[in-house]
């Protein structure tokens, strides 16, 4: 039995780190989708953030500058998306997906010389008292600064969405562009801002991966986390608080997989690596009907799942 507790404890500790990067991307995609757009380029924006955050940190020696560069890189990619889908009326799914391959190409090219670079990166900061809570404290309160920002950002986004004018405008555009326009809002500006915020947050998620979690850059290092985020937004029923649950579930799957590998469980690592993806599909299937009801009207044309 003690083995089980060891694995569970390790899983908890290991869940937060990998969960944070996906959480940022999920926040970002959530904002974008609330404005009635779906961005499959989130995966590309994460890669851009991971890569350019790392490069700028190496070149400037400042991880703070690196983090801001990551947000700019992620947002830059999503601006291509904004121009094409809003002003050229291209298909969102195809454009976003092409943007991901485009971002993969740019980062593979730009990051070639940095694969072996060593950085200080973001390091864990212990929160006094809180980090001494048995088990939970170490998992939650001995993390890097981006993790703490992510904890606070979820509730803030929740409040912002429901109780501020900007949040209400965002939701209004996501429900109906025509009605929002008639109510005196500028739908294009709001959607562009939402895509920019989405890209920047995805870039931040990528930066957490390269600067915080691994302290390295490698080609294609996000392995689908951006797509996972798109799925998690649906699982989260477009709520930032549920997004936190989803992201830590994904992180937990990665933590569990690492723990099982450490204790030498007699299962192939390749099967264990499937766990995070399978768990996301599983929870999406479990809660799908609630999601279908809560979906913003503006997404229903794109993300229909019943015929």
């Amino acid at each position, binding site marked *: 039995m003690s083995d089980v507790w060891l694995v569970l404890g390790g899983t908890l500790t290991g869940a937060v780190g990998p969960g944070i990067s996906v959480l940022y991307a999920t926040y970002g995609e959530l904002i974008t989708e609330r404005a009635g757009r779906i961005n499959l380029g989130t995966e590309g924006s994460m890669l851009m953030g991971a890569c350019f955050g790392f490069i700028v940190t190496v070149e400037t020696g400042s991880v703070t500058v690196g983090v801001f560069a990551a947000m700019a890189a992620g947002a830059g990619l999503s601006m291509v998306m904004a121009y094409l889908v809003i002003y*050229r009326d291209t298909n969102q799914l195809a454009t976003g997906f092409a943007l991901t391959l485009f971002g993969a190409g740019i980062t*593979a090219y730009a990051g070639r010389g940095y694969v072996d670079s060593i950085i200080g990166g973001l390091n864990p900061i212990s929160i006094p008292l809180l980090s001494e809570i048995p088990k939970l404290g170490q998992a939650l309160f001995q993390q890097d600064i981006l993790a703490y920002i992510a904890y606070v950002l979820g509730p803030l986004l929740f409040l912002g969405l429901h109780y501020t004018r900007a949040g209400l405008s965002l939701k209004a555009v996501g429900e109906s562009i025509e009605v929002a326009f008639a109510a005196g809002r500028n739908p294009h500006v709001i959607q562009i801002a939402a895509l920019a915020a989405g890209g920047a947050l995805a870039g931040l998620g990528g930066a957490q991966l390269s600067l915080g979690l691994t302290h390295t850059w490698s080609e294609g290092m996000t392995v689908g986390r951006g797509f996972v985020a798109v*799925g998690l937004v649906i699982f989260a029923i477009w709520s930032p608080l549920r997004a936190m649950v989803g992201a830590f579930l994904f992180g937990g799957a990665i933590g569990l997989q690492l723990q099982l590998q450490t204790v030498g469980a007699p299962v192939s690592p*390749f099967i264990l*690596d499937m766990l995070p993806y399978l768990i996301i*599909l599983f929870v*999406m299937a479990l809660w799908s009907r609630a999601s279908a009801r809560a979906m913003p009207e503006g997404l229903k044309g794109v993300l229909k*799942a*019943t*015929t």
Partner: protein
Amino acid sequence: MNQPISLQQAQGFAFAFTNHPAGRSVIAIIFAFVVFAIFIAVIGRDPIEIYTKMFEGTLGSKVGLSEVGVRMIPFVLTALAAAIPARVGLINVGGEGQLYIGAWAATGVALYVDIGTIWLMLPAMAIAGFLGGAIWGGIAILLRHWRNVNEVISTLLSNYVAILFVNFFVFGAWKNPTGFGYPYTSNFEFESILPSIFDTRLHLGLVLPIIGIIATYLFLSRTRWGANMRAVGGNPDAARRRGIPVLRYIIIAMLVGGGLAGLAGMSEVSGIQHHLRPGISNNLGFMGFLASWMANHNPIAIIGTSFLIAAIVVGGDILQFSGDLPSAAMLILIGLVLFSVLGFRRLERKAE
């Protein structure tokens, strides 16, 4: 007699060209190559030299052309894997994973089923590849129909699962015992290999995309079922009221699409690799998806877009080999071409 064409005629011709979808696509592709030329110049290389090398290595020689043909095989098949489901309104972003599973199933037959003669072996492998891809794609339809999970997400995520699934076998039970520890399966025997044709790297797998294109084109444009598929994709509720079995069309379209991507996997292992190893695809399925969107899911236009993407990829390999540019740069060019082709499409005035 023969008057030189007047300005009005020239303008009329230019107008017709820029208004025709194919004409606009050509302009869009040229635009993308110009933008990429600027990128090449910015990184301090000579765009003319780079494009010349790409052209000579692809369209400028018999070897280059045959190499482009070899690459077109999986692109056409995975493009059809996106185009056929798109006809009924499904987005299949899982061509990559379906290709892997098809390759896995075909390899299983080649290595572990004792058939003996090439005349039975190759069809058996093709059937296995098709079924593998079809079943993998079918899972997305199961999730969609019973659990409301959108197929975009399920097909996307299943790609990563499929790649790990293949790794599980080639690093484990199927690893070649005499392969010095490399994660390859044993090499295929003669009867499991698609024979090469015209004394080039082109192989008999070429018949798969040719049949695929012709059959898809005839089916979609000449049969009642093809018209019904369009009705399902346009407005499923209206189609249902007209008595069309909507779900049946959705299931079949996805199974056929997944199956064709699976055939691409069979053709890759049997025609090119002659064993199964990790990373056999390297984005083939993803680029097929883009080829289908670039062609607006039209099977005839897919020949053109697959050719273009194949030429870019082969050109990229040449540049990688000569040390001019890493092949990853070609993903940038392919992305630019797609953005440009989609962006140059005529904006339809939406009925407000």
